[in-house]
């Protein structure tokens, strides 16, 4: 039976709940879990002031309620499974290294920043800075997968180093800005300036996009690795059309102000 947390009082100011994480909750009894410290604004209060706890931890945590104002859930998580039935606040899965997070609703900004491994699935939309690095960091996401079924906002995969980000809907501006390596797949449309400053890595988009003048078109081709990726995405519940599965892609390389070793693949089918 999973551990169940139900939000009974909506926090008025952001609640920092980095203790809501399998690593912190394993081997604790119910009283100890209820007494874990969370920051409500600048006050330290026990978890039970906001959450009703039941069940028993067996590697899984289910959270219920509108967690828009709850930050840092599952940061540095390394194993187990967390399911959030509702919306969730910023910094979910920050620097997580393993396990799985499933959010049934929307996520706010900073989904999985500097993530090292594991998987985050957002069934709704996500905000800015998905899988990115914190300001000043030279490296963002370094492994794992982030799957967003809806749309995302700007700077997805900023300084990303490794791993996979999939966006089922549209992405905002600066998709993959300054990325070092890794893969971003956007099944909808990308905003402007995709791949600005990218060194290596791949950005794959299902629709035509206007690219920066520092990207050059090298060829049209049908990379075989894409079929494997798309099959994997289908198994995760995303809808991939047959035409996408079998179509050629325009290969653009850039960003020539950096190493020029990155690629943007744009759907070239009819």
């Amino acid at each position: 039976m999973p551990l169940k947390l139900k939000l009974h009082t909506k926090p008025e100011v952001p609640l920092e709940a980095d203790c809501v994480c399998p690593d912190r909750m394993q081997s604790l009894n119910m009283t100890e879990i209820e007494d874990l410290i969370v920051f409500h604004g600048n006050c330290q209060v026990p978890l039970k002031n906001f959450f009703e706890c039941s069940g028993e931890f067996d590697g899984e945590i289910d959270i219920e309620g509108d967690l828009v104002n709850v930050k840092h859930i599952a940061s540095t998580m390394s194993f187990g499974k967390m399911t959030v039935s509702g919306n969730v606040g910023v910094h979910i899965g920050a620097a997580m290294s393993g396990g799985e997070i499933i959010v049934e609703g929307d996520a706010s900004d900073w989904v999985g920043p500097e993530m090292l491994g594991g998987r985050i699935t957002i069934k709704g939309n996500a905000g800015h800075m998905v899988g990115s690095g914190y300001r000043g960091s030279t490296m963002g996401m370094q492994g794992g997968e982030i799957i967003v079924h809806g749309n995302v906002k700007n700077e997805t995969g900023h300084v990303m180093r490794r791993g996979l980000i999939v966006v089922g809907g549209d992405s905002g501006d600066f998709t993959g800005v300054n990325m070092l390596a890794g893969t971003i797949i956007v099944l909808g449309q990308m905003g402007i300036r995709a791949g600005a400053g990218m060194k290596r890595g791949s950005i794959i988009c299902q629709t035509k996009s206007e690219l920066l003048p520092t990207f050059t078109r090298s060829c049209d081709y049908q990379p075989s690795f894409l079929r494997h990726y798309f099959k994997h995405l289908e198994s995760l519940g995303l809808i991939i059309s047959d035409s996408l599965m079998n179509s050629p892609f325009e290969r653009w390389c850039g960003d020539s102000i950096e190493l020029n070793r990155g690629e943007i693949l744009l759907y070239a089918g009819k």
Partner: protein
Amino acid sequence: MSAAMRIVNGKVYDPANNIDGKIKEICIQDGRIVDSVPEDVTVIDAQGMVIMPGGVDIHCHIAGPKVNAARKLQPEDHRHDVHPGTPFTRSGTGGTVPSTFATGYRYATLGYTTAMEAAVTPIGARHTLEEFHDTPVIDKGFYVLLGENIFLQKLLSEKRIEEFDQAVAWWINATKAYTVKLVNPGGDEPWKGKKNSNVSDIDEKTDEGLTPRQIIEAFIKSVDKQGFPHPPHIHCNNLGHSGNYKTTLETMKTAGDMRAHIAHIQFHSYGGELGKDPISKAAEIVEYVDNHPNITCDVGQVMFGKSTIMTADAPLAYVLKGHTKGKWVNADTECESGCGILPFNYQEHIYMHTLQWAIGLEIFLMAKDPWRVILSTDHPNGGSFMNYPKLIKLLMDKAFRHEEMKRVNQRALENCSLRDLDREYTLNEIAIITRAGPARALGLNNKGHLGVGADADITIYDEIDDKEMMFNAPRYVIKSGNTIIGNHEFITDFIGKLLHITPEYDKKIEEVVQPFFESYYSIEFSNYAVDDSYLHDHEIIATGKA
């Protein structure tokens, strides 16, 4: 006011009073060390412990606009090093450039009670004083950058020496500084005005018709005439370039027999050809310093790991930015100096970095007179001041030094004599290079010793074999008679005082300076000088020749 106190049974190291490890009683009353105190006062039993005066850092960068720019530049540096508050102290952030509060507390946790900010633009003095007010525990002062001052250079080139002296004194008073700082004299102005130009020789003429040597000489003479407690603090030309030891020697020769302080001398002790890998010229530099008692220097040791290059030598920062290819800040271009800041990382496997590390250690180990070769890392340029305990261990523990030498670039070690140096510093010598020496060089008569009348700034360490551990965690730190750290815990907060000088000058000089301000400055003359409301608790150190 602090209570009276008596410290008994501790081994006292007080080199200024020739006390080398003697068990001696120290009595404190009203923030000073006294002969005796009544029987019933608080007693600290320092059995098995070492008592030293509080540490004095003669050269560091801890406050002011450029330090703040470095903080803003590196959010990643702070995020991983949070400095939590305690019931007595405030929180902050760490990294190579800690926040103001963390700076004060972290110095205290190393047993340091005085630190001098080494480069502040005159226009940044107000900002620096405000940050000082929020830098707890330690006493502090700053050196004001006057070497790139166009007005002063103009007076010099017109040979108006009398007015030059008066103007220097006016500027010191207007900024509440402790002494004059010269950084790459003559080099910053051409760099700002003309595309990447710089002076490369001490006798090269700038556009003003002046050479760096003339500028240095003028300041040394002026400060000597006026009897500042600390001579001009000089960052020589050509920092970091191969073959720059000649410039350093010439700079020291320029001083003649007048006093001069050469800052972070390690960065100025390189031989070899310009543009090629340097070799060590520590021996030549140390020989000159040893034979000339008018010269003092701090080493500016490089420690491996993260650092932040933060200098008024903007052309140098520009060169380094070309190597790191990362972010940098070029600031203070619009005022009477320059400034460049960039994150840096000293790595063991790199020839240059290992050589820098080795030259610093060579200078320490070769110096015959430790009183004039002072411990510093040019915080945060060579590494954070938090590296001092490790540096002390490198100096005191030969075996540890040789162990560390195995991990560094071996080719670099062949171009210096570090392998042949067997010297180990004693506790007394450490007390000299970290306390008594800098206090004497700064002319702070009440600091760096434990004689009667001295400020009661005292550090008590547990005597342990691992010197890094020992100097990392003093058991007691007493500042102005207040026990700040007791049994390794902060037990009270304290704001130290500002140390500054007020040399006399003729008010008529303002009539000479003012028209220049009205023609060229974007700030009103009447708003320029820092008024006394910016002074918190402060002490004026006497000027004038004894």
